[in-house]
């Protein structure tokens, strides 16, 4: 018996991120004051504490900084997916995020692989989460 995979949890910090994902766009935060970009959305810039932040669309390309192949699922919902790849992706714009590497060749993932964003539906209301696949 498979359980539902986790759907996005939206809060005021992340509303624009998840709205973007619904439209197949990967949104990241840029600080209008210092120009730095960060991934985890929040009220202020973690580098300079300015609250003058904007959302920009990432180009969706990145590289695998590290990864693991999960052989034992942490939650019953993921049991059917085992083995699957969990990776840390360095986006071309700089910020780092987590995603699965999807696709038939996912288990061949290596550090340094070029990857590209794709979107996976989660939940029944049209919500999506960013995912990545290896670029050929």
């Amino acid at each position, binding site marked *: 018996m498979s359980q539902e*995979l*986790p*759907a*996005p*949890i939206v*809060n005021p910090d*992340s509303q624009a991120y998840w709205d973007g994902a619904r439209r197949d766009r990967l949104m990241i935060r840029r600080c209008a004051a210092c120009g730095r970009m960060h*991934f*985890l959305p929040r009220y202020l810039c973690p580098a300079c504490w300015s609250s003058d932040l904007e959302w920009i669309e990432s180009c969706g390309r990145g590289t695998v*900084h*590290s*990864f*693991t*192949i*999960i*052989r*034992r*699922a*942490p*939650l*019953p*919902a*993921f049991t059917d*997916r085992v083995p*699957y790849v*969990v*990776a*840390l992706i360095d986006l071309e714009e700089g910020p*780092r*995020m*987590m*995603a*699965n590497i999807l696709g038939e060749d996912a288990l061949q993932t290596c*550090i340094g692989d070029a990857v590209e964003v794709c979107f996976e539906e*989660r939940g029944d209301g049209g919500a999506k*989460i960013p995912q990545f696949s290896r670029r050929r």
Partner: protein
Amino acid sequence: MSSSSTLRNRVAIVGVGESEIGKVPHMSGLGLNAQAAKRALDDAGLKVSDIDGLLTAYSFTEPYFMLGTVMCEYLGLQPRYNASMVVGGASPAVMLKHAAEAIAAGQCTTVLVCAGENRATGQTRDQAVAALTAVGHPYFERPYGPSIPGFYAMIARRHMAEFGTTSEQLAAVAVTSRRHAGLHPNAHMRAPITLADVLNSKPIADPLRILDCCLISDAGGAFIVTSADRAKDLAAKPAYLAGIGEFHTHEHIICAPSLTEFGAIQSGRAAYAMAGMGPSDIDVAELYDCFSIVPIIELEELGFCPRGQGGRFYEEGHAAIGGKLPVNTHGGMMSHAHAGSAGGLFGIIEAVRQLRGGLGPRQVDGAEVALVHNEGGILSSHCTLILTAQPR
């Protein structure tokens, strides 16, 4: 800074106690804490009424909101200093620091620090794994199904890629720890294992296998801290706190500044500076070892070997009793016990025991200075401490 303005030589650990360890279905989590506390008090030769402070951490199996206060209630204590602290695996060392600060500031005289839970029998293995998943970021990590071993596996993978660390070197950590645990009468897992056993054990999150992972134990641990002046007159030989430091860089792995450099560098430097010592002064080290990659990184960050050489340090036998720097002489969390916040506390207990001496084949000859490192989260929160057999 003069030593009088730091915590150096201001306090000592004067009593230590471990509960029954392993699968202990006849005891509750609070009961394990109480048994460890009673043993620590007896060890110190103190009376219950001497305790005027209590610090504890957290429990997944008995998740009381005010665990510190609940612990006092359970133990029948009415202290003037009390808190429950949640810095993950770093909690025991951080609690020692807070206890030392409170005693040095005159807020209390004698602090009981305890932690532990019935993690092996108080919940199913799936519940234990699911509870630990809560460490992942709820919005930006958990949708991807990572596990705690998976987080550390990504760190191990990066270490392998940058420095050439091998699976055999990771396995050497598990083998060394198990050999040490075989010399400890209360360790959870004492049967020897070989490199081949580790390398053929069940894969959990590549490159980590089940024998690269810490145990899930029922266990409680406790120690008692008092002023260095008071310590001199007590039953057990005191272990003096020479230096202690902490550092915190992130909580979730997506926000880690690096996968190969962590806050043990800064916490270690602070501890060494307070103690007026360096890595070459350390006789024995009790390092946090929730996964085999972790003590490898800590050896490097704390200055015991060059960056990238931690795996080789283990492989060449330097971390074994009788080696250059014996590490985790009780067996660590991979073989002695791991029960929630108590994991790193057993390292502190073992350091005290090594400094007291008389441990038979487990004894590190001439152990005068011990270093303990605790880390919490995903190598997120760090606390390093140095204990000495004599004030210096």
